[in-house]
């Protein structure tokens, strides 16, 4: 597995923390990441992740935000994802591995990868939507 970038490194490191540091005191505060096992049964994965914001996105994201703002948004969005979705999105959309290769690397079935990929992508879509719709005010400083 070729690991060449910071984003993937962060994904793997976060996944590692989620899984191998269960002694960390839990917190109910805002922003706490949901930790889920990479192999857990996906009881809710059939639930449709409908868009909350039915508004058309700009054709070009740079009409809303600068390139560096978009990059920061994507990084933050990826880190907000539950680990089991984040790692699949990272390997497929950032590292551009095939779905089959992602499944092989993670020891998951191809259907499981497809399901997690879709959910992860839809969660990122929700994260980006407030910034990308026509008329959005851009990233608050």
């Amino acid at each position, binding site marked *: 597995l070729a690991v060449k*970038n910071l984003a993937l*490194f962060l994904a793997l490191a976060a996944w590692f923390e989620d899984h191998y540091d269960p002694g960390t005191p839990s917190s109910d505060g805002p922003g706490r990441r949901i930790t889920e096992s990479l192999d857990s049964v996906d009881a809710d994965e059939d639930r449709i992740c409908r868009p909350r914001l039915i508004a058309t996105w700009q054709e070009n994201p740079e009409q809303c935000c600068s390139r560096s703002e978009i990059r920061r948004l*994507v990084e933050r969005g990826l880190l907000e994802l539950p680990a089991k979705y984040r790692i699949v999105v990272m390997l497929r*959309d*950032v590292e551009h591995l095939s779905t089959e290769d992602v499944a092989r690397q993670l020891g998951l079935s191809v259907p499981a990868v497809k*399901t997690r990929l879709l959910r992860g992508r839809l969660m990122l879509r929700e994260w*980006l939507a407030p910034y990308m719709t026509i008329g959005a005010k851009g990233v608050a400083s």
Partner: protein
Amino acid sequence: MITCEEFFAEFADYLENQVSPEVRQELELHLAQCRACHVLYDSSRKTIKIVSESASFELPQKVFDPIIDRVMSKLRTDRH
């Protein structure tokens, strides 16, 4: 015309361009008539493009290789 649920059942494969021409035709007919699904499809496609183009930051190999090795070896042993 297919329903939104039927559209969504094919959505993951449609985003990956892995549907048959017949299914594609049905999905595109639905998209032409359903604004919610059209927004969902359009914004999901753009999300994938944004993520693919934005998240790539090269780091010196020696900075994170040992940690990656640790994570990957843990992943491997975890499966046994």
